[in-house]
């Protein structure tokens, strides 16, 4: 094409060869074949996602239901003992559920105030250059692999907690909570920050114009307007914490007992699956029990994401 340009005058007079026809040919081909193909590809990828989710759910459901042919559902849901290799085996999910709940609740207690506070600082207070530095630091924080955090937890955080609280072992629920809080922070900060930044400038100006201080404006106007977005951020943070596996497997002590305190070793749903899957025989009762645990986990994260989505949708309105 480019070498044609200096002869453009001549090309009008020269009869149309195959080269001159090529653009129109391609355009026509693209219209006739290309567009439907692209459209089909896009449609296929969209449907594939739906199919994957559905198949994963079916697969989980099928294998978990296999458990309940041999093991009563009530005993699984309300049993307080998880003893998969004793005889007869006990598959009570309650200790694991409570383990997840304890670790998650403490992680959220730690990271929500910290996360929302940082988001407020970044969007409202920090000068521009600091803001940019902080935002990139938070992205780096999000990219730390969880196994590296777990490693730090074992060699540094666990001894510190053991000495601080005078525990027999530092591998306990709180160690996991602290690390999980750290992992959920980037999600909470960046989404809350978006929500705060998204509050119309006019609201702020109206408040400032009435003589409100920066704090009054932030507290009474900006924060309430951004509340749905912040709630969504918190829910997504919770989802992240509940589903996290590697860190809790490494630092919470892995004791599948009924937790009475956050300072004792415990085990979460995720850590149970990851830790025991390698030791089970495919198709055994234990194997199916782990799938049932997976189904419980799936239900929890699904519910959390669903609620987060509700809040996000309301925030956009």
């Amino acid at each position, binding site marked *: 094409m480019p070498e044609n340009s200096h002869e453009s005058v001549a090309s009008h007079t020269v009869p149309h060869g195959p080269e001159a026809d090529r653009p129109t040919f391609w355009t026509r081909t693209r219209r006739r074949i290309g567009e439907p193909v692209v459209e089909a590809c896009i449609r296929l990828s969209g449907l594939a996602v739906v199919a994957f989710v559905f198949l994963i759910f079916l697969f989980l459901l099928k294998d978990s239901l296999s458990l309940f042919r041999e093991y009563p559902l009530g005993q699984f849901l309300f049993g307080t003992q998880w003893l998969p290799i004793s005889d007869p085996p006990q598959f009570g999910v309650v200790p694991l559920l409570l383990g997840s709940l304890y670790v998650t609740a403490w992680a959220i207690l730690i990271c929500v105030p910290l996360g929302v506070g940082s988001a407020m600082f970044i969007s409202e207070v920090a000068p521009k250059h600091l803001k940019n530095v902080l935002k990139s630091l938070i992205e780096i924080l999000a990219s730390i692999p969880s196994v590296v955090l777990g490693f730090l937890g074992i060699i540094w955080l666990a001894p510190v907690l053991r000495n601080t609280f005078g525990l027999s072992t530092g591998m306990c629920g709180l160690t996991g909570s602290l690390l999980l809080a750290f992992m959920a922070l980037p999600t909470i900060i960046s989404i809350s920050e978006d929500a705060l930044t998204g509050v119309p400038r006019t609201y702020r100006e109206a*408040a*400032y*114009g*009435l003589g409100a*201080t920066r704090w009054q404006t932030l507290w009474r106007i900006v924060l309430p307007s951004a509340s749905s977005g912040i709630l969504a951020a918190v829910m997504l943070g919770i989802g992240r914490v509940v589903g996290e596996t590697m860190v809790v497997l490494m630092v919470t002590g892995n004791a599948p007992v009924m937790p009475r305190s956050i300072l004792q070793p415990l085990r979460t749903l995720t850590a149970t699956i990851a830790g025991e899957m390698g030791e089970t025989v495919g198709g055994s009762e234990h194997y199916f029990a782990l799938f049932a645990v997976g189904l419980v986990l799936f239900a929890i994260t699904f519910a959390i994401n669903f609620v987060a989505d509700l809040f996000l949708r309301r925030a956009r309105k």
Partner: protein
Amino acid sequence: MVNETVIKTVNLDCFFGTQHVLKNINLEVLPHEILGIIGPANSGKTTFLRALNRLNYLHRTYSQTGEIFLDGREIHQLTDNLLRKKIGIIFALPQVLPVSIFDNVAYGPKVHGITNRQAVSQLVEEALKRAYLWEEVKDRLPEPAVRLSGGQQQRLCIARTLAVEPEVILYDEHCSGLDPISTAKVEDAMQQLKAHYAQILVTNNTKQASRVSDRCAFFLMGELVEIGPTHDLFTNPRDKRTDDYITGRFG
């Protein structure tokens, strides 16, 4: 000098970054008058208004030199909050807050530390009456303010400003989004407010300036070209550029 002018600017220069937006503005605002400010877009009218209550400082690159006096006191002696309480502003688009009608008006007094519920509701009622809105909204105070019509919202914003008991009210093209009937109602409210306040009206609508204001100033490219009684400025402008603008030859 102290009590003859409400606002007086001396050699006011405003900058956004390196851009020189207002050049050497010397201007006085008298008690009980409506001062109209006209001029084409980008002539610095809004910047002038927002310099008076230091809203310009919300932009990081803003700087200014010169002095602004409110009742004879340089405004930098006042805190931002007190200054903005004394000099209220109405924006081009009604900026109602996403709360009820009552809470919109009550917000200002609450911010300034009035917590007594009865005192607040009395202030709200009085402000709404002065803004000529009370009759229309007295039965629907708990409703979300966004349900009001544009003209009602703008009068609500005026009421909200009045509720903090300012000394001066600034209007930044506050009728640009309103229909003629709503505009007339807002202008009526402004005439009534003359008894208590000095008002500055920035407008792109020269007809409105001639209708409403007592004195009028013409800004062009950041300069104050001419200021005088509205009637004189419109019938017998001293500067050729003013004449060109008001007769519609440019802008």
